[in-house]
Each structure stands twice: as structure tokens, then as C-alpha cells.
């Protein structure tokens, strides 16, 4: 049953998601403007990005979106154990993403590529770094939700928190879906 509190919470989350979408859209606009100004610089920058790591991270995040959706589906079907496993896998995938990102940053830094090296890599660190911060926040939320499902505070009758947490996770995935071609593929 949809309560007033549930509807208010959903509205608040959609407002938050809208603000996050516009934040990243502004950064994508910045990327577009600079790419049009310095096409050769961007092509050279993309060549130096780790295609394998970035592509693996894309698959990792897409699967994690599936697992968190599966967790919600399981909670709705009163399958608590399946939901716990799905959320745990989601968190594992999120940690995998951040680990691979860290490896990538370490490789760039060891080559002397830092924020400020040029426009492309400044945008790269800014946008992927902001995305990584959102991932960390998402992992905190997932930890809280996993605990809630495990302790039966999130149930088939009361799972607004999981619905909203999943929405946030999917948005973070959508942002990476756009970041991947911009920084790793389109040359």
C-alpha cells in the first residue's frame, strides 16, 4: 500500500536524482565544448586511457544495476536470503569498480598524468572522480540497506528505502554509461 510518507520520499528522491542529473549534464556540456575546441588533444588523451579497465568497469556497473534491481524484486517477493545475497554482490561489484578505478588512477599518476596536465585529463579526473565519490556514497547506502534487509527492517511490506537506494545506484550507473565512451572509446 502506498502511504503518504512513501510518496513523499519518492518525490524527494526524484528531485535529488534530477539535481544530480543536471550536475553531470553540465559537466558533459563542458566536455563537449572543450572537445570541439581541442579534438586532437582529446583523441590523444583517449588513446592513453586504459580501455580494458574502463570497459571492465562498465560491465561491472551494469551487472551491479541488475543485482540491486534483483534485490528489490526479491524483497517484494519476500525472498529475504536472495535479497541479501543480491545486495552483497552489488556491494562487491561496487568495490571492484572502485578498486579498478584506483588502479587506473595509480597508473596515470605514475606516468606523470595529473589533474591540470591538460584539459582532457583535468576533465577526466574531475568527472570520473566525482562519479567515484558518488559510488562511495552508494556503497554506504547499500551497506545500510543490506543491514536493514538482514535485520528484517526492510520487508515485502515496507521497502521504500530499498526502492530509493536502488534508484540512486541506477543513476550512478547511467552516468558511467555516458562517461565510458567519452573517456575511453570515441576517438
Amino acid at each position: 500500500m502506498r502511504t503518504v510518507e512513501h510518496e513523499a520520499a519518492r518525490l524527494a528522491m526524484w528531485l535529488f536524482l534530477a539535481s544530480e542529473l543536471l550536475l553531470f549534464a553540465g559537466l558533459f556540456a563542458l566536455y563537449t565544448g572543450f572537445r570541439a575546441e581541442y579534438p586532437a588533444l582529446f583523441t590523444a588523451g583517449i588513446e592513453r586511457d586504459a580501455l580494458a579497465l574502463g570497459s571492465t568497469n562498465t560491465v561491472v556497473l551494469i551487472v551491479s544495476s541488475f543485482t540491486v534491481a534483483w534485490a528489490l524484486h526479491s524483497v517484494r517477493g519476500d525472498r529475504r536470503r536472495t535479497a541479501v545475497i543480491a545486495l552483497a554482490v552489488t556491494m562487491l561489484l561496487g568495490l571492484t569498480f572502485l578498486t579498478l578505478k584506483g588502479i587506473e588512477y595509480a597508473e596515470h599518476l605514475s606516468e606523470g598524468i595529473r589533474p591540470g596536465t591538460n584539459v582532457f585529463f583535468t576533465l577526466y579526473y574531475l568527472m570520473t572522480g566525482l562519479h567515484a565519490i558518488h559510488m562511495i556514497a552508494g556503497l554506504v547506502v547499500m551497506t545500510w540497506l543490506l543491514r536493514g534487509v538482514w535485520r528484517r527492517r526492510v520487508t515485502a511490506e515496507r521497502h521504500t528505502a530499498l526502492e530509493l537506494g536502488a534508484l540512486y545506484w541506477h543513476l550512478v550507473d547511467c552516468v558511467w554509461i555516458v562517461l565510458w565512451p567519452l573517456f575511453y572509446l570515441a576517438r
Partner: protein
Amino acid sequence: MIMRSGAPLVLALVALLALTALTFGMHFAALAEPWSLTVALAIAAAKIAIVATVFMELREVRGTPAIVAAAAIGFVALLCFGIAGDVAFR
């Protein structure tokens, strides 16, 4: 409480992974600019649509949240057209 089959979720995952593989393959197709970026972003838009409609259940959002979602998408589209116009007429 809404009971749904999990099949749409699985199908969405398969579609997303297939589109990801397609994007990866296009990288080696050596398309000329700006088609390389345009095709990649078009595929990304399709993937986002799948995530939004299946995983985020955007089709079932009603009332004010639907207006908020539509407004956000509208403003992003406006920004995209504005930037594209600026870049095209420099």
C-alpha cells in the same frame, strides 16, 4: 506490493551487455568523427533508456515524481541542443 516476474530484469541485463559489446566493437570500426562519438552516445542513450524503464521502473512513476523526471530530461535535452548548436556554429 507489486509481484512481478524477474524475466524483464534478466532480459534487460542481456540487452545491456549486448549493447556494451556493440559499443566496444564500434571502437575498432574506425568511424570518422563525429560519427564515432555520435554512434557511441546513441548506444549509451539506448542503454540508459533500458536502465530507466526496466530497472528504475520509470514507466510506472506517476504524479509529481513523473513531472520532475520529465523536467530533468527536458532540461538535459535543452542543454544538449544548446551545446550542439554552439559547437556547430563556431
